[in-house]
């Protein structure tokens, strides 16, 4: 069987400064969004996996199958709140390897630091 290709998505977490939530709540809200907008037929093709979530630096990296890249981007964009608090999960960049997504993440973080 041919190995399934993966995509790594880097996204930004935008929230009010004093609001805190955990990794479990983020993954639940992403799954809820997938279920709400795409249903079981698509949900079983996604292969969602959290690689990294950093609430201090406000970014996250998730992995999904390459066929469902746009579905995950839409699902992330359609998340409106976590635990009743307004939040935006804004996709920044997609990559085929974990190495390049981390390189891109570092570039973006350094650029943000400078500005």
């Amino acid at each position, binding site marked *: 069987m041919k190995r399934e290709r993966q995509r790594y998505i880097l996204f930004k977490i*935008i929230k009010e400064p004093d609001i805190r939530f955990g990794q479990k709540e983020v993954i639940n809200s992403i799954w809820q969004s997938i279920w709400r907008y795409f249903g079981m037929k698509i949900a079983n093709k996604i292969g969602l996996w959290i690689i990294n979530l950093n609430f201090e630096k406000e970014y996250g990296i998730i992995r999904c199958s390459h066929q469902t890249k*746009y*579905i995950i*981007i*839409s699902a*992330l*964009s359609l998340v*409106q709140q976590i635990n009743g608090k307004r939040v935006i999960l804004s*996709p*920044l960049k997609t990559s085929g390897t974990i190495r390049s997504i981390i390189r891109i993440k570092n570039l973006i973080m350094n650029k943000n630091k400078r500005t």
Partner: protein
Amino acid sequence: MPYFESRLKVNIKDFDEIEKKLEFCKKLGIRNLILEPVNTFKQISFELREKIIHQTKLNIYFRYNLTPNSVNDFKNAIKNYNNFPYILSVESKDKEIQINAARDSRVDIVSFSDENILKTLSQGVISLTKQNNSFIEFSLAPIMVRNKALQSKNFRFLYKFIQLAYKSKANIIISGNFDELFDLRHPRSLLSICHSLLDIPLNSAKKIFMDNPKLLIEKIQNRKNNNSIESGIRLIKGGELN
């Protein structure tokens, strides 16, 4: 990549709010932004325009929206917008006004942003906008409602009418038009929603979010140039290209 957020309403009397919205757009990574002053029919002053543009590194453009109540109202209002240096859009439920707006070369966008106005889109308006090289605008703001039943209804209407315009090969622009800060999304995310939920092919979705707003901006810049007759036709002096 030059993605455009084609409509962000701002209250020009409240500069702090404008500043806040621009900062939020910057945080989201939006680079090209078309601002629409609300609650005013007057042109934005030169000083304020410069202040907004210099406030941020984003590329800021301006648009005005007319919401006439009758055809006469529209005809009277449009007289003041000859060679208007900004984008001019018209938004109305009335089909007669929509047809007049689509026919008028001074109107750049016929807007169907509101969910109630969206239902009134007809093939006639689409054909007229195509003839006139103007644009039809849809907005994704109605999908951000929290009520599931209302949201699915809005998705259905958006799907139906965007597909109607897309299949008729209309010049489409899709904007966010979100009122609340936390409803704002990067156009790249909106593109993805259009592709995965509204069945617009990826290349066409990219054209809608990148090329069409760019064409619109170029159209406005050509209008400012007195030597420009229409898109692609420009008067030159003695054969010189300056």
